[in-house]
């Protein structure tokens, strides 16, 4: 409601995206990076920057999935455990059943989409509030990941190509000075793709429309339920890719990991300027939000701040980053 205050200046955006917000979050990110570079010489080294990029990949991809859902004014608490579930399914297909590499990849994405489809159906057809539907799914998937894996990590020893998804570097192969791991490449490709989908396709159009005024969309004769299911399914498939990234990075499917990741992902989305009440948001903002979190975490570690103080400072800076944006916005 308070969204629509009269204080707002009219926005003449290309296509309902909010360019300024993106740039402002970007300024916070740059500010943090400058600070850490000055504070510690180790920060700005290639190795460390690559480490930060690598550390952002999984959360970035999950945050992309969350962006879609949050723009519809929904929420997805299951992204973390869904990621884990998908990596376990990849392990089942590849290690337990010895199927070829690409089948494992497809399996992870398929089960991600399937789970998203179920969440979407619960929300759209059975009218379960997104918070509850995805909380339930979070628990169900967490349990299933444990059951299916037998509460043990599944290692991808039989599929050596699997580690290449995340760890090797296509860019580094072409440009040896820039050993950016594939996980990061995948993150950027997905960000560009997701941004196109969000801004140029019907799916994106309905994502914004549902978040802005679902009832109006329904009254316009759109099959709201179907599109909601499509959006959650799409977000689920993206979580499947996150599952591949993390499994490849760890060379194993870790069944107990995943819970808690949803908060980081949602935080990235919100820091990136997407409103939890729906209707606005950008992928670029989300990616910047994810980087703000990783840079902060890494920088504090590099500065060897005591761990309990790291937590305090992270909390304070998340608030400050958003506050700084508010300030500049209201100018």
């Amino acid at each position: 409601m308070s969204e629509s205050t009269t204080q707002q200046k009219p926005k003449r955006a290309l296509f309902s995206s909010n360019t300024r917000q993106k740039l402002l979050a970007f300024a916070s990110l740059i500010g943090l990076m400058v600070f850490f570079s000055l504070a510690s010489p180790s920060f700005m080294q290639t190795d460390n920057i690559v480490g930060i990029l690598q550390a952002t990949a999984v959360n970035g991809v999950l945050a992309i999935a969350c962006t879609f859902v949050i723009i519809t004014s929904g929420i997805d608490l299951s992204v973390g455990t869904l990621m884990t579930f998908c990596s376990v399914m990849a392990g089942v297909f590849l290690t337990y059943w010895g199927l070829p590499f690409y089948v494992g990849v497809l399996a992870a994405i398929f089960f991600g989409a399937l789970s998203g489809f179920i969440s979407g159906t619960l929300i759209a057809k059975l009218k379960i509030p997104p918070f509850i539907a995805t909380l339930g799914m979070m628990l169900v998937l967490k349990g299933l990941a444990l059951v299916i894996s037998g509460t043990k990590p599944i290692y991808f020893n039989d599929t050596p190509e699997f580690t290449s998804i995340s760890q090797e570097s296509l860019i580094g192969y072409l440009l040896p000075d820039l050993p950016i791991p594939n996980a990061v490449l995948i993150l950027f490709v997905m960000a560009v793709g997701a941004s196109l989908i969000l801004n140029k396709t019907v799916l994106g159009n309905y994502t914004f429309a549902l978040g802005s005024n679902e009832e109006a969309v329904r009254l316009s004769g759109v099959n709201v339920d179907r599109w909601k299911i499509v959006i959650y399914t799409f977000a689920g498939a993206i979580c499947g890719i996150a599952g591949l990234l993390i499994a490849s990075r760890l060379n194993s499917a870790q069944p107990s990991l995943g819970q808690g990741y949803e908060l980081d992902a949602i935080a990235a989305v919100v820091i990136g300027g997407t409103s939890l009440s729906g209707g606005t948001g950008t992928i670029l903002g989300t990616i910047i939000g994810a980087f703000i979190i990783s840079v902060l975490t890494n920088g504090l570690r590099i500065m060897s701040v005591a761990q309990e103080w790291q937590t305090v400072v992270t909390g304070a800076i998340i608030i400050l980053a958003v506050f700084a944006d508010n300030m500049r916005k209201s100018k």
Partner: protein
Amino acid sequence: MTPIVTIRHLNKTFPGVRALNDAQFELFPGEVHALMGENGAGKSTLMKVLAGVYQKDSGEILVNGQAVEINDPREAQALGIGIIHQELNLMSHLSVAQNIFIGREPRTRSGLFIDVPRMWRDTQEVLDRLHLTLDPRTLVGDLTVAKQQMVEIAKALSHAESRVLIMDEPTAALNNAEIDELFRIIGQLKSHGVGIVYISHKMDELKRISDRVTVMRDGQYIATVPTAETSMETIISMMVGRTLLDTGGPQVPAEQSEVVLEVRNLNRGKVIKDVNFVVRKGEILGFAGLMGAGRTEVARAVFGADKVDSGDIRVRGEKVSIRHPADAVRLGIGYLSEDRKRYGLATGMDVSSNVVLASMKRFLWSQFVLKRQAIRATCAQFVKQLEIKTPSLDQKVALLSGGNQQKIVIAKWLVRDCEILFFDEPTRGIDVGAKSEIYKLLNALAQQGRAIVMISSELPEILRMSHRILVMCEGRITGEVSAAEATQERIMQLATRRETAKSN
């Protein structure tokens, strides 16, 4: 000729409310059929059933002589039935173009992407047809209610295949020029054989465009009459079930009473430019102007709802600083906003909570505990006085008819008992009977010594009610007219006196 729509024996009950009771209706192609009735008579409900928003309890609907079941808006659209809802149903975060083409986005050849340039072009065409100067790329949330209403209309008209077009109070937020434009388009549609259902509380519009009138009362069908052969008085008495007395204009010319509110050199960006005015005790000051003239902005600025760049405000001669609506209310200034849904009502709450929202302090024991009895008594009194149609004081406001919602906002400010009251479009969506009640009320308030500023886009209302009229154009006050010398022509002349024109 077969009627394009026939509705018979339609019943619809909401818990506690019999909204439709054996209602009937008939529409021919190429006909403008007005649907009239008091607030809460069931007009919107009847049309929503036809548009697939609500499901009927019993009764039958025939389209082109064929019985149909309309289960959702999509099926209505498939039957060629389009509707402009009484309440705005827009996606405020989306552009004008996206709103108009929701559900029918043009795609690129690959079918994957939306053909955005084409969507803008098509939107521009629709807007041009309406002679609307709007950028298809503007976000709808940034538009004024009037422009949003035009977007709704454009959206409904952009359906080329519509054979039935329902307009539920389309002109409530429009000015005369826009209304003329709309009527021109209705004329066009009519000549193409489209059947139009037209709901309005503005009686003068009936004579201008409708062919027949169907009157409803308390959910029941009363009669259908040809407009040309029926007098307004007959229609009104059919609506309200009695004859209304005209209350006439302002009673006492409150010439030289004390000034209670003085606004000097008020500026806010481009929308308010050096505005000066005074309001006196016991007078009704009318604010006239075209859409976007800045009247609402002035009221909001004085009320502290928006920040101003500069300006002095004096209340009863004392200079005050109003930075927040709470300051204004403490000083005895009330503001009834033009957009009830967005700024006036907590629609999720019940009637009584809304009525006392601005005056909680009066209803507390030791500043904390609610005086339930007193709240209910006060609410009951205003529900009675304003004839608010609600099944109980605990009804959620969102479930009331549009006009009754408007009355609740009025009640809220009456309960607060402010000395200076800004009424922004107070009779928007209110039926004739209630309108004269509100006029009576405004007069009574003025007589009690309140100072009233009435912003209205309905010139007859301004002319009839105001002691003095200020006219605005492009953020400036372009003139003042006394009740005696006011005419429509004089006001329109001031309302269109643009700054650029003046310098020539």
